[in-house]
């Protein structure tokens, strides 16, 4: 099921269930439980065999270890590639995008970190946002940029958390940059150094 996102502020991304649409190439990028979104979509697709014949799927296990490689392979996609992690998946995505033409349908599913980074690469090639569908599934851990040192901390679960680059204690805002593919982290004890609230697990 789609991971529910409470709309907060208007830069915070929102998501919708994937639906198969006509296209020349169906590029699917997913991690972890995002695989289930694609399996569900294919289960409902009326032109299933046509999509399978022009589908390229790039997949990595989720940050929580969820690995649905077998289920995806069983779909019978024309091309399937499993990367060990999201960073390892991106070079292949960039290479595939270099040959993707207008009329390509993009399906992104899984964690917000995977969706955001894939979306950034697709948009950098000039594809319209309308060609990109996004369904958030599985873990809600966040990719957060420290506004102070600019370092990005992956898989942030608590709020506040310690920046993995500069060590400042950051609170996690809902303000989100598609260009950076990250939420914003801001020093929580800047005005009162040392007064850091107990971290709470907000993202699982």
């Amino acid at each position, binding site marked *: 099921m789609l991971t529910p996102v409470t709309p907060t502020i*208007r*830069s915070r991304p929102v998501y919708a269930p994937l639906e198969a649409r006509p296209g020349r190439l169906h590029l699917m990028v997913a991690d972890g439980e995002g695989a289930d979104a694609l399996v569900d979509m294919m289960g409902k697709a009326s032109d299933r065999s046509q999509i399978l014949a022009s589908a390229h799927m790039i997949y990595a296990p989720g940050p929580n270890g969820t690995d649905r490689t077998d289920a995806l392979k069983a779909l019978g996609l024309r091309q399937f590639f499993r990367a060990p992690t999201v960073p390892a998946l991106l070079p292949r995505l960039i290479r595939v995008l270099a040959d993707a033409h207008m009329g390509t349908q993009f399906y992104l599913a899984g964690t917000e970190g995977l969706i955001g980074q894939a979306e950034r690469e697709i948009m950098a090639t000039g594809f319209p946002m309308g060609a990109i569908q996004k369904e958030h599934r599985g873990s809600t851990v966040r990719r957060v940029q420290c*506004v102070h040192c*600019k370092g990005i901390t992956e898989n942030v679960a608590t709020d506040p958390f310690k920046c993995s680059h500069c060590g400042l204690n950051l609170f996690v*805002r809902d303000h989100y940059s*598609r260009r950076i593919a990250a939420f914003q982290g*801001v020093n929580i004890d*800047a*005005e009162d*150094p040392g007064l850091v609230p107990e971290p709470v697990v907000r993202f699982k």
Partner: protein
Amino acid sequence: MSLDFKPGAFDFFRDETFRESFTYRNSNPLRFPFPFDRDDYMYSVNMEPHVPGRKGTAFEHVFDVDEHYVSEMIDRAKVLADDPLRCQSLPHMTLAGWDLLELIMEAKARDYPQWFSLTKNGNRWHWVNRPLGIEQSLTFLDESTLPYGPFEYITRQTQGDFSLQDERDNDLWMDAGMITSQADWSLDFDIGMSFMEWHAPVPLAHEKGVFDRALKFLLKLQHGAPVRRFNWTMTVNPLLDTAPETYPKWGPTKTTLTQENLGAKQHLRVELQSLWRLPRSNAIAFDIRCYLCSFEQIVTVPKWARRLHRVVRDLPEELAAYKGFLRNRPAMVEWLSKYDDGAPTSPGWWPDD
């Protein structure tokens, strides 16, 4: 231009600092664009035509060059030397940068001929900026003839932060910015965002429809008919560069206020924002000009003293929190209350003559 240029060639420009020693002062507080036209405040679209206004005020010319010009440009050069990410322009925004360069050079040469001159021979231009000691021959629209891109070149010589908005898909995209005197927002994070995205963190205004109306209004903005509005916040010390990037450095100063030092340290920070449709690129230039005035200078104007007290006292809590002065509001109200005798104030923002 480098960090080496010095004030002094003209007596008009103050040699002052916006950091460490904080020697910034206004010689004439009556010149300050006090932003409150009534005794309370709430967000509104509040746009009006940006036309030249009263002599001797910040409104006299459309790009106001005041006594702080040279020192502000030195401060900007220092900010950029520390963090070049404060000026960014996405590749498709170069033409808009040229548009802005032309707009500013023409306006300054027209309004301040004693300081600036622009000579054109076709596309071969000669620009002189005497206060900053700059002479530059350039070929308009040829980037190789300038030491920086056109946007950075001209905004290193112009007070006020600037952003350039590209218009696509019935929306405005903030695709370039020179942001060194900002009220706590990050260009590096926000660049590339749509109008609603970069305004996302502002409380209350979305629900009131302010941004929907503002975007509709701006999409109709015409070349040659700029508009302006005010925004404001509070800053401890006359610090221009209140960036989120450096918040751990300046955040602790918020805890240093006492009733004794508040009048000198606490500043009302006013943004006189003007918006300009650009002719070639169809982009919109957004000039966010920051003016600072200490509380002790503001209260020398009795009307402003009474009104500032009432606005600060009655501001909704969400706005005081968003503007970052919730913790100091009680101290500000206590200090300002001494200058409010409860008398009625006249409408409009001008001091009573």
